[in-house]
């Protein structure tokens, strides 16, 4: 396995091997699924839609429904007007969503299809029924990555749908590209703090459903249209994560002068503290709910109990920039040493922020945007690590180098926990601690010399 990977590093300028990112449309599709009653629509070849639905399904093990314009060569030459118009007619007649959220693909971007014009014509022709909405985001696959697609769709939702009427006692939270379980936890924290909130998008209740013998194409979850409209009236927006949370918050600030508070993903102690502190500002009396204080104390207790196992352990972190930044901070809080920190995505902020975090404490750390799992593996071959924190694709390196792996981020294709248990907030950090220690202990139990096999750890 991976036996063609050598420690010798040949410089690559053109070849990407084992990517740590994917393309924009899948992020846009995920964001669209966080709107209640929304049908994501992929304007391009049907393979894109099929790939995105398949991969999201493998990650969530839940229905992921989306439609496609099914381009063939003809549409690629003559433009996708007829295809999108026909698609809209079919979607509204057969599936009847409230909103269709169109995202583009490399194909429709290269030929330059103008979605607003096509939708306008379709609306004039009566293809879009009264009261139904079609929005769009441009998500060319050759720009940015899946996280760009996510934030482009979030910004598009805001541009199209947010309104300003009269001020409301509520805040907006743009949660970034995180799991439904994380969105659920973010709402729980805000609610415990007594802060009325609109979470946008909100895939909880959409992609973490149960099994009761019924199927709803548009389940109960998702940010509702009135909620989205009301975001212009909120007191403020908390954007979580530079790459996937801040753009939406800034769009709202630009459009409706709703002030944006820009935080990092609330993963770990400090980042969650910052989130709670921000929520305090919007709460009635600034008091922190007893439950939250208990959660925090239990987290600190666990870190204290297990500190010896974290201390100075070398860790490789790979994934999406917001996630990697947040996890790196948490690993530092645990006393670990993130020595290799990569993302496949583009992002100068990624490198800048990680240098801020790591230069003082782990000056030897390698930090790189636009990297890939192949490069990470080569680094590891040159100097190994004790732990890998990445999505499922890290499992090949973990196996051949016999390194414990903690799966976080997107996609996780081979475990179930991410679907139900958050990694954000104090309880999320507890789960991370459980995963990290279990991974480290499992390896020790499996491979240490018999005389060092411990009953108690």
């Amino acid at each position: 396995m991976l036996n063609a990977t050598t420690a010798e590093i040949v410089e690559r300028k053109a070849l990407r091997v084992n990517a740590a990112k994917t393309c924009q449309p899948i992020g846009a599709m995920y964001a669209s699924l966080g709107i209640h009653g929304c049908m994501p629509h992929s304007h391009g070849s049907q393979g894109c839609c099929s790939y995105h639905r398949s991969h999201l399904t493998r990650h969530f093990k839940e229905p992921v429904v989306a439609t496609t314009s099914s381009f063939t060569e003809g549409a690629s030459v003559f433009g996708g007007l007829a295809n999108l118009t026909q698609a809209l007619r079919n979607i509204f007649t057969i599936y009847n969503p409230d909103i269709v959220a169109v995202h583009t693909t490399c194909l429709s971007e290269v030929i330059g299809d103008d979605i607003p014009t096509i939708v306008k014509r379709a609306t004039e022709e009566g293809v879009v029924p009264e009261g139904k909405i079609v929005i769009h985001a441009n998500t060319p696959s050759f720009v940015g990555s899946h996280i760009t697609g996510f934030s482009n769709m979030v910004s598009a939702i805001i541009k199209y749908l947010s309104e300003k009427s009269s001020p409301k006692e509520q805040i907006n939270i743009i949660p970034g590209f995180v799991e439904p379980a994380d969105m659920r936890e973010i709402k729980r924290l805000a609610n415990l703090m007594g802060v009325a909130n609109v979470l946008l998008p909100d895939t909880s209740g959409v992609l973490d459903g149960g099994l009761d013998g019924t199927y709803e194409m548009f389940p109960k979850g998702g940010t509702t249209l009135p909620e989205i409209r009301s975001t212009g009236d909120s007191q403020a927006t908390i954007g979580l994560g530079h790459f996937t949370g801040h753009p939406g918050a800034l769009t709202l600030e630009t459009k409706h002068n709703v002030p944006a508070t820009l935080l990092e993903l609330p993963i770990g102690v400090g980042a969650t503290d910052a989130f709670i502190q921000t929520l305090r500002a919007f709460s009635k009396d600034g008091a922190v709910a007893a439950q939250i204080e208990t959660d925090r104390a239990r987290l600190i207790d666990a870190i204290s109990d297990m500190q010896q196992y974290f201390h100075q352990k070398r860790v490789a972190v790979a994934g999406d920039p917001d996630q990697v930044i947040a996890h790196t901070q948490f690993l530092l809080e645990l006393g670990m040493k993130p020595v290799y920190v990569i993302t496949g995505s583009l992002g100068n902020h990624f490198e800048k922020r990680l240098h801020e975090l790591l230069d003082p404490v782990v000056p030897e750390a390698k930090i790189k945007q636009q990297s890939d799992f192949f490069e990470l593996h080569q680094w590891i071959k040159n100097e190994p690590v004790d732990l890998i924190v990445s999505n499922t694709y890290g499992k090949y390196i973990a196996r051949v180098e016999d390194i414990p792996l903690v799966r976080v981020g997107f996609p996780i294709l081979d475990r179930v926990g991410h679907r139900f248990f958050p990694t954000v907030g104090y309880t999320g950090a507890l789960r991370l601690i459980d995963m990290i220690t279990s991974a480290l202990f499992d390896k020790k139990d499996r491979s240490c010399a018999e005389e060092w096999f411990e009953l108690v750890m």
Partner: protein
Amino acid sequence: MSSISPEPESGVSDATDTEALAPPPPGSSAEHAASINAAEAREKMIEIYPDKTKKKRAKQFLLNDPESPQPIAANTRTVPGIITQRGCTYAGCRGVVIGPMHDVLHITHGPIGCSFYSWQTRRNLARPRPGDVNYLQYSMTTDMMEDEIIFGGEKKLAAAIREAYKIFKPKAIAVYATCPVGLIGDDIHTVCRLAKAELGINVFGFSCEGYKGVSQSAGHHIANNGVFKHMVGLDDTPDDAEFRMNMLGEYNIGGDAWEIDTLLRKCGIHVTATLSGDISYEQVVKAHTVDLNVVQCHRSINYMADMMETKFGIPWFKVNFIGANSTAKSLRKIAKFFDSKKLTDRVEEVIAQELSVLRPIMDDVKSRCAGKTAALFVGGSRAHHYQDLFRDIGMTVIAAGYEFAHRDDYEGRDVLPTIKIDADSRNIEELTVEADPTRYRPRKTEEQKAALEAGGFSFRDYEGMMKEMRKESLVIDDISHHEMEKLIEIYKPDVIGSGIKEKFIIEKLGVPCKQLHSYDYSGPYAAFTGAGNFYKEIDRMVNTKVWRLVTAPWKSDPTVPPKPVYRPRVRGGGFEDEGAAKNWKRG
């Protein structure tokens, strides 16, 4: 009905025929299905569509007549917005037909997504021989960004090939074009030709842009052309074996190819190349040295079989190693082709042996699964092949359809001359193939062929799915989400075979779904041992306790349970007020 000539009793009942005669068990799902007016059901499933869509879908949605299959509008464009199962040309080319070649380095020329999604997601397993290299865990791409879209990506592709060579030193590099590559006009073939000259290894490209066809199928054809043009025929050294053949259209999903190979080896038949499952470059380049090609998935590889026959004189026929009955028939047909008493006897011995192991499993599973129903919507051959497995355990297939097959896969190859070539098919190159001046060697003389055919033997044959399906069963090409939902509502099948996108939708509705692309990460299901695995798997799925847990008890009976009232108990159990003395004695 079958294309395979009558042979000695296999010991397996020909379920196709007997099933049609036996009435469905009372109270069974099969009986429920039989009570449904199929024409009305079909109408209910498509009535919601706008006129144009309904007209189009009606041509792809038929009530089966096995005696004279009606023309089905397969391999036509998907209606936009309908929620299709289908993927794209790139997926069919890179993902299916060539992807499994494990020591060829595959580079996707395009933005990041296409290579990302085709990275390890199809379960074409490989077990390279010692010393062999395996690139299947690598996903390589030029990761095109905006600059390359604007100024062209040829330079980056050339550089990527050079870098790949420098790092990996592969024997061959295959390059795949994605949508934007075709649109901006990158000439991947020239880049590949130059790289081949520069590096001295085999480098070739596939113009498999996603939009090229109406489904993955176009990609299969493009892949066949490329493999034939650039690989097959490069090494004339035959393997040292008496009975040599290729297994075409077998992708080793979940280890199927291994199972078939093991079975064939037991019989004394040698497989030179399995196109394409667990296969190395060396095996592909000498695939033309065999005496027979057998075709498992007709849709994805019939082009290769035809081209190899024309150029090298290798005959081909269709086989099916899915299902006990079909496997036995296929083995016998291969033995008959090689015309050796030794082989024929060995094949009969092996069949008897394998069946003696399989039959108890089949009978056991059948006792729990008979009378249940299934529906299959998948691929270009599996929706047909897997019907045999269900028949083996007494289940009825009430509906089936392919995702990307053509009319011949439904109606049989007899209809080939009548298939109209439309604009979408015309896009896909048809290679002009001629007999090789030195290497063309007919493996059977015309007389030998005629003699075989006189005995019911057929070459270049595929009867298609419809002739083997019950009358009035539903045949649905490129099924939509809506039709699937309605199908479940009306027919309530006990299990559906489909893909990952549909799986959890179907299961939300309380019907277990078997992924027939990835096998739900299990398998193998081919040959006799695989059949046993599949029977047990279906048994597990339709009889698992979880489906009985779906409804909470307060949903099935909303009566509020009474609060407990205090009643004095006696030693040894029981209550005083219900004859405690008796309890005491008994205890």
